[in-house]
């Protein structure tokens, strides 16, 4: 099972933005293999969430762990059969551990998007 997490440049802490995160950690639960995927949507003028979610779908990820997620991105992920969980810790390791112990909740407070009106 592959999971994706938006991470900051330090590659260990969670980025609060899904669509405009600098990169995603793609982590394979079974093999414990990890890859950092540059987020090509980071500089998009609009539709960053859609583009970021698309790259998650294209990378055949099964679940996303994120502190929050915009409506459009969530719609792409849901259509791509990807489950979205809410992170509760600051680091990728803590969240992966919590996920493995079934302690993360499904993210249900999808926001309508910030569209250049703040949020960070």
């Amino acid at each position: 099972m592959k999971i994706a997490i938006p991470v900051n440049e330090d590659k260990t802490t969670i980025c609060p933005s899904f669509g405009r995160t600098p990169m995603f950690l793609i982590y394979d639960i079974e093999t414990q293999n990890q890859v950092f995927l540059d987020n090509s949507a980071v500089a998009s003028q609009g539709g960053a969430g859609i583009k970021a979610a698309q790259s998650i779908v294209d990378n055949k990820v099964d679940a996303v762990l994120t502190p929050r997620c915009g409506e459009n991105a969530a719609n792409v992920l849901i259509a791509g059969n990807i489950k979205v969980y809410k992170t509760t810790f600051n680091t990728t390791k803590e969240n992966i551990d919590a996920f493995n112990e079934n302690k993360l909740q499904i993210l249900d407070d999808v926001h309508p998007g910030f569209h250049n009106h703040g949020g960070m």
Partner: protein
Amino acid sequence: MKIAVLSGKGGTGKTLVSVNLAAAASKSTYVDCDVEEPNGHLFFKPEKLKEKPVKVSIPSLDENLCSGCRKCVDFCKFNALAFINNKPMLFEEVCHSCGGCILFCPQKALSEKSKKVGKVEFGKAKDVNVITGIMNLGEASGIPIISEMFKSLKDKDELIILDCPPGSGCMAMESIKYADYCVLVAEPTLFGTHNLNMVYELVKIFNKPFGVVLNKCVEGENLSEEFCKGHSMPILESIPFDYELGGINSNGRIATFESNKYSVLFSKLLKKILKEVHI
């Protein structure tokens, strides 16, 4: 003649200046290009004469014809299309109606579908024609609505006041594109000066003649005034931070009609602008 009133941020006094300039003229057309939150009509309270819907074209998919080649999705630079389960998925409100996906589809699975994004209201308040652009909530761009309003402006000699959207983005650009003169409204604060600089850069790029109206002026330091002097920008008028004016304005009334002092101020400002345009 088209006079655009703009500012780098909202709440600076664009509508105050626009409404009062239109009111100070014997005959004018006031165009509210701030289609995300048009408010000039609150002052003019125009009698509504007609209304026109504004429509754009968005793609519509025939799933039976789609081969799942993804060309449309890869083409879309606005990220309005996602590719899920081998089919494109459209995000209507992100689509900019460029039509590229339809042109690129080798299977002709995409066709044009009409979508209403807002409307233009035409009204009249005494000698002022009031044109108001209203964008539907959630739409990405008000540009089709602004363009629609420009299509309706015909008489070249008539005085047209364009109340622009805040900022210096696409919608402000669309609004000043055909302007003969730009009025930049600025607040005296550091933030106000920063935003004045944004629209100053914009009018320079568009090569438009312009002048500055300093609003909310108080005793003491005025950073926007200093900025204007430092860049040799003409200052047309200084409007005081005045309880009387604030009171009239916040009650949706027009200062030019209610106060002799402001009737004089805005008439003088209008004359000055007209003189500048004719130089």
